[in-house]
């Protein structure tokens, strides 16, 4: 039925970094170059072998593909089950994509304990990829927790002055979330037993529990939804669970920030898409006013706090809070446009914010300061840096033609369809987003340049090389996002039907619109008495099929 494990490509992609890490263990720790190039080679190979997945994926089907399953702990119903649908696939590919850039940007940033650093980076990669391929909740939880360990060390060993505080904060915060999530998982697991089903940890059977959960008491449903909500909200992070993020970002090394922003935060939003929305749609809807309030606060609050930051990295970190709150707004719209926008925002945030952290990292490596006030006028001596920074600033504030816009517009459109007033409030965040990013750019790149700053070198070949894929991706998504939309469409439609089975039952307007488009300009001229009356019902009649 399914291919044996050794023919399962996602499995290989997931574990290649771990195998590579094991191989690097054998190398003596003085050989810095071997670790750098070796880790880079492993990460690039990993990305390269993940690319065929894009082409293998059957876009017409919402089913889990590359499925592979084998018993693991039969007595508990735990299986080693993997496989991906479109939603997992794009995040999986984003991980391998950001993965090699994170390795590449570390060459000059990391000055000590290279062996451990690159090994942890690769272990991190495997654990993150693991989260996205799991089809078993137990396995999911395992990878989810595993992820924390490498991140903890990356921050605690190679971080800034307050690294321990930040690392422990990150660890405790996310652990709290995980425990709540575990409670939720176990509650559903035991509910299966209670209603006489064979208990299983498979995600599919968890999602199939939705109607059963609906029959439980309201309190049970709300508590369950809250357990998942807080568990994922901490990871996203949503207001008011976000304060671990600025600390973790500011203290983490550049690659740590890139991974954190690029992928780790997506775990939370992915959790919402995988668990909360399909398993507890009605409880989520009932609690929606509270969720939306936190979301809108996050958008505006994050942007306002970002505006007055004096540290570049902290500014970008708070902008993440704002951007991810926007992503949540899209998901909470619970309609195809909003969820599509939310998915795009995950990818776009992974591209733009990672790039912005890299951009901050570049000046930090040259000047060993991230204070905005220490810079100014860099455009004069760093033209390539200025260009890339400008592109990514525009991408971050959602300029049409670049990636950010696609996500933002889709989210706001979806939100407007579902909750118009909330969308109006969220749209103000767009204004603030432009304000803080352009102000940052103005203070760092424009104005007169100081003597110290004039000595800063423009980007070298390696730096240009790792920015290039990000820029290409930003333009690709901005100009021609349809291929990604095709991958995401079937799973998102499935999710929407899980939330609201009647969503697509309404009358389809496509043919009616086609007829209107054909009339076009001719519709401007006022008809001579009868013509318009005759036309409209005819168009109406076409709409039925």
């Amino acid at each position: 039925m399914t291919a044996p494990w050794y023919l399962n490509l996602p499995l290989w992609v997931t574990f290649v970094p771990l195998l590579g890490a094991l191989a690097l263990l054998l190398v003596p720790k003085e050989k810095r170059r071997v670790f750098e190039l070796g880790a880079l080679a492993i990460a690039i190979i990993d990305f390269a072998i993940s690319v065929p997945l894009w082409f293998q994926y059957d876009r017409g089907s919402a089913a889990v593909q590359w499925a592979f399953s084998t018993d693991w702990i039969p007595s508990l119903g735990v299986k080693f089950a993997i496989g991906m649908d479109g939603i997992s696939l794009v995040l999986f590919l984003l991980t391998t994509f950001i993965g090699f850039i994170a390795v590449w940007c570390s060459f000059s940033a990391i000055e000590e304990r290279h062996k451990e650093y690159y090994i942890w980076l690769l272990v991190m990669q495997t654990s993150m990829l693991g989260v996205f391929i799991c089809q078993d909740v137990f396995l999911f939880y395992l990878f989810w927790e595993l992820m924390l360990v490498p991140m903890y060390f990356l921050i605690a060993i190679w971080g800034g002055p307050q690294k321990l505080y930040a690392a422990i904060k990150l660890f405790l915060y996310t652990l709290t979330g995980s425990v709540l999530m575990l409670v939720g998982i176990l509650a559903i697991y035991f509910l299966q037993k209670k209603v006489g089903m064979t208990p299983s940890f498979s995600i599919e059977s968890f999602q199939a529990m939705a109607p059963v959960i609906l029959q439980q008491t309201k309190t049970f449903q709300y508590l369950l939804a809250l357990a998942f909500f807080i568990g994922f909200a901490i990871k996203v992070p949503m207001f008011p669970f976000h304060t671990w993020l600025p600390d973790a970002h500011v203290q983490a090394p550049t690659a740590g920030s890139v991974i954190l922003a690029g992928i780790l935060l997506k775990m939370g939003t992915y959790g919402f898409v995988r668990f909360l929305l399909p398993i507890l749609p009605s409880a989520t809807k009932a609690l929606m006013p509270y969720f939306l309030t936190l979301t809108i606060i996050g958008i505006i609050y994050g942007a306002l706090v970002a505006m007055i930051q004096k540290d570049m990295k902290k500014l970008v970190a708070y902008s993440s809070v704002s951007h991810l709150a926007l992503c949540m707004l899209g998901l909470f719209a619970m309609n195809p446009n909003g969820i599509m926008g939310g998915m795009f925002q995950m990818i776009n945030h992974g591209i733009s914010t990672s790039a912005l952290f890299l951009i901050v990292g570049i000046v930090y490596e040259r000047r060993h300061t991230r204070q905005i006030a220490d810079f100014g006028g860099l455009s004069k001596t760093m033209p390539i840096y200025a260009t890339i920074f400008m592109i990514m600033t525009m991408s971050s504030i959602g300029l049409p033609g670049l990636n950010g816009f696609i996500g933002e517009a889709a989210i706001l459109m979806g939100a407007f369809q579902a909750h118009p007033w909330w969308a109006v409030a969220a749209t103000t965040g767009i204004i603030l987003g432009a304000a803080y990013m352009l102000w940052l750019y103005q203070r760092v790149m424009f104005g007169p340049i100081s003597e110290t700053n004039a000595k800063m070198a423009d980007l070298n070949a390696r730096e240009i090389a790792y920015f290039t894929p990000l820029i290409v991706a930003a333009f690709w998504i901005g100009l021609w996002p349809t291929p990604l939309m095709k991958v995401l469409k079937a799973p998102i439609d499935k999710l929407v039907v899980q939330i609201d089975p009647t969503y697509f039952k309404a009358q389809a307007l496509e043919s009616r619109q086609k007829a209107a488009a054909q009339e076009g300009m001719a519709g401007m001229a006022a008809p001579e008495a009868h013509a318009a009356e005759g036309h409209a019902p005819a168009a109406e009649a076409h709409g039925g099929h």
Partner: protein
Amino acid sequence: MLMEHAASAALSTPVHASVLWLIPFLPLFGALLNGAYGLFCKASGRKAPSTQLVDLLALGSVGVAFLLAVGYFVTLMGQAPINRSITQSLWTWVDLGGAQVMDGVARNTVAWAYKFDPLSGAMALLVTGVGFLIHLFSTGYMSEERQDGRYYRFMAYLNLFVFSMLNLVLGANILMMFLGWEGVGLCSYLLIGFYFDKEFAAAAGKKAFVTNRIGDFGFMLGFFLLFQIFGSVDFDTLMGMTRSIMARPELTIFGLTHSPTWWFNLAGILLFVGACGKSAQIPLYVWLPDAMAGPTPVSALIHAATMVTSGLYMICRMNFIYTNAPMALSVVLFVGALTALVAASMGLAQYDIKKVLAYSTVSQLGFMFMGMGAGAYTAGMFHVFTHAFFKAALFLGSGSVIMACHHEQDMRNMGGLKSKMPWTYASMLIATIAIAGIFPFSGFFSKDEILWKVFEGWYKEGHTLNLIAWLMGMAGAFMTAFYMVRLMVMTFAGEYRGAGHDPYGHTVKAEGHHDAHHDDHGHAPSHSGHDHGPKEVVWNMWVPVFILALLALVGGFLNIPHSLHWLGGAHFSEWLGPLLYQKEAVHASHEAAPAIEYGLMAWATLVWAPGAMLLAWWIYKMDPTWAKAKGFVAKFPGVFRWVHNKYFVDEFYEWAIIGPCKQLGAQLWAFDTWVVDGMVNGAARFTLIWANISFWFDAKIVDGLVNFVAWLLQRFSGGFGKLQSGRVQNYAFVMFLGFLVFAFWKFLA
């Protein structure tokens, strides 16, 4: 069915559509090639690309795009009015899946498509045509940048702007329009901040972008609402569906039931907020005067001729919404009239030649919106065109003047340039007469048509608002004629004051005038020590200006109002006619124009505007000491200061919006640090304290008990301790004793 197929076939393979995409994309290629090559040269330390090559790519791409646009325009002219639309869909831009809208589920799909029809075609001609002339002017104006290697960047931005502007006008749906809308905003930002090492230029660029974003807020909401009503953002679909939607008694969206007019009003007002940002209307006009920090060709191209007219284009494009939204139109009318008046008054008290023109632009845009608001879309659009000619001529002319005067922008330090720069003088004079609205210059045909249409709304339909707007417009027109003559006299009349010859003490030193260091060329006017006076600029600067002035002279004859039909036809109105939504069928009426129309026309062109011009002439020319003006300023210093500083609106915004925003940010950050994070850290501290208490409990109580037991044992084990003497004999004795006891017990048993 068959007909449908034929129709869709005709739609998908229109005439010569295959290279339509080149019109916008050619300038993009120019921008990319120039930008990439220049950046490569700069980053790798090579010599900057040859300026001839940059010129060739930049001018060539815009020039060919213009020729292509002309070709398509001619093609359109050859077709029946109802078929004048060429569409090219390049690719599916976004496909967001199903969306529940008013009537059902629509597929939210938007194509990257261009649509060349009478309106967008005319705009494309304007953008590429005027754009080309301004590119040509820049080759002369940016002569210093040609030397220092920044030239490629300027030209690349300028080309990128043309690309974005063409996307805005040629886009076949609202999303494409928004792409251009934001794209021109970006280019404007980049070009205003071209001299980015100057703080004020960088700040002005940011201000323009952020202010426009506030407008975009409204634009986006308006476009979401339209999508909610129509289920599509495609202009063709929107146009085709409007009538059937208007035929319904009510629409229900988000559970709210209102009449279609109510919803269209809402959408129209929201979209107009966007137009206010881009087209610098009250209250979002504040960015445009600051935008003068950009090089003068930029002011001419972006901040006068094309970008700022986007809002007008949008309203004309969406006329099917506005025609059905009377309330939104009233808002447009009132805001336009207010802007026309207020901005014109600000123009009266400026000394910076570019600032005068900037306020003039804001004011003229107000006139255009008045036209739209009166429902006279063609009149408003026609003013877009004539204004593009005369205002571009004025801006470019002012650029020539500034350059000739060694980067001096203060008109008090100019004067007497008439004989020194004859071509520039002639061109600017024509443009001045045109903007003042003197027959038969183009401004007469466009502006007076607008004012007449506004007046007609009161005269024929009795809308009081129209009368108020008309009065405001007339006052604005008076001021326009006044400040333009003031500008011309101060700049060209009398004798040149820049070289130290200044009998009446008009000149000001740079430090005395707060705007003087805001010279648009990125450096302080340090050349004033040059001994050679101003002279006419090179041909590639004055020729484009002169061409624009000629267009300003004759352009008006393209759209002659019905009342003057013996002069010619209203070609422009007829051209746009098929795109305008008609509420009911109109039959061409040949009723005679009312006498009052002729009366107002004569009044405006013979008395009102010339009166204002003569007044300015009398104040500034007849009396070279400017004693009357100076006396006025001395008498009412408050009024002058108030007007000169744009009624302190900037300061008000700073105080009322920007400051509080930053303060709120700071407060929220404090909240974040002390409350949100404080709770987290508090929890951590609490845990630590608890741990310490536990540790103390552990150490003192739990362990204390253990130790107490140990202590007790120790205490009572003293006796036993003595047994352990360590002497083998003792042990042997005890062992023997034990053996005896054991044996005795065994024996007894």
